[in-house]
């Protein structure tokens, strides 16, 4: 299994999921009109990773903005990592939001509540 690297574009985020280190990045904009198509390989990758995850996984999420069709897909990705966590593995969810971005702060709190998993939510200067 190889790492997943999708370079960021104007409407899609950076996805860098590294199965050698267990450090995962999901970062930037997610506002494609075709989110399902973009997130399909991402979901497939996490599904495969979940079959034999590393002892420790760190998921770093930094969204500048996501549209509503991405919101469902992002929840799907987070659920896959939540499954890994719920199987007794160590998964850390780091949710970063841009300074003063109340909406992204709330989104992080919301996802954490839906999944029933604590997130480390912190403000950063800029995304």
């Amino acid at each position, binding site marked *: 299994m190889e790492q997943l690297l999708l370079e960021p574009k*104007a*409407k899609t985020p950076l996805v860098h999921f590294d199965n050698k280190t267990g450090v995962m990045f999901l970062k930037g904009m997610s*506002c494609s*009109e*075709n*989110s*399902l*198509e973009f997130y399909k390989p991402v979901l497939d990758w996490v599904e495969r990773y979940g079959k034999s995850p590393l002892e420790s996984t760190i998921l770093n999420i930094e969204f500048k*903005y996501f*549209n*509503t*069709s991405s*919101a*469902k897909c992002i*929840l799907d990705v987070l659920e896959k990592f939540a499954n890994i966590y719920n199987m007794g593995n160590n998964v850390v969810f780091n949710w970063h939001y*841009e*300074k*003063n*971005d*109340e*909406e992204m702060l709330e989104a992080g709190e*919301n996802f954490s509540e*839906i999944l029933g998993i604590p997130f480390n939510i912190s403000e950063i200067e800029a995304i």
Partner: protein
Amino acid sequence: MDIHKKMQHNSISLTFKGTLTFELIDSIVAIISNRLDQIESNLVIKKKVYGVMLECLQNLCFHVEKINEEDYSPHFDQQSTLFNIDSDEKGYHITTGNFVAKEKMENLKNWLDEINSLSEQEIKELYNKILRNKNYSEKGTGGLGFVDMAKKAGKLKYKIDAIDDKYEFFAFNLNIPKPIA
């Protein structure tokens, strides 16, 4: 109105009427986004305007009526959509307009009325309920668009105008107020 007011140095004004494509949306969003970076220092407001604009435009593009040639009206360009954004000292105003088949309008109207009847807290709960369901339309949309707009901009104002026996015109308006200085 006084047209010269549109020339205020910190305002936005853009109107589009025509056949909307996702490529065009990218251009419109880029233009407005650049302008917002210049004139709006409040990040929360800026992101609300950006988000509402994008959801409105993507919604229009997904749901514009595909009209049969024999049904073309001699009076209206029914494949076209209208999008307008402008701002004044009170806030940002987004207006859209498109033709909707009569049989679909009832559902649309009921959906908007339902959202408009909810409190802020209930809108958040509805958003989460839809977020958690795994349903997507054939077009890949998740049914969150209007709920998200209501979360960001409050009341979803609309007006339905009669056109002919098959279509009605749906005018939609959202306002994002600027904080009182």
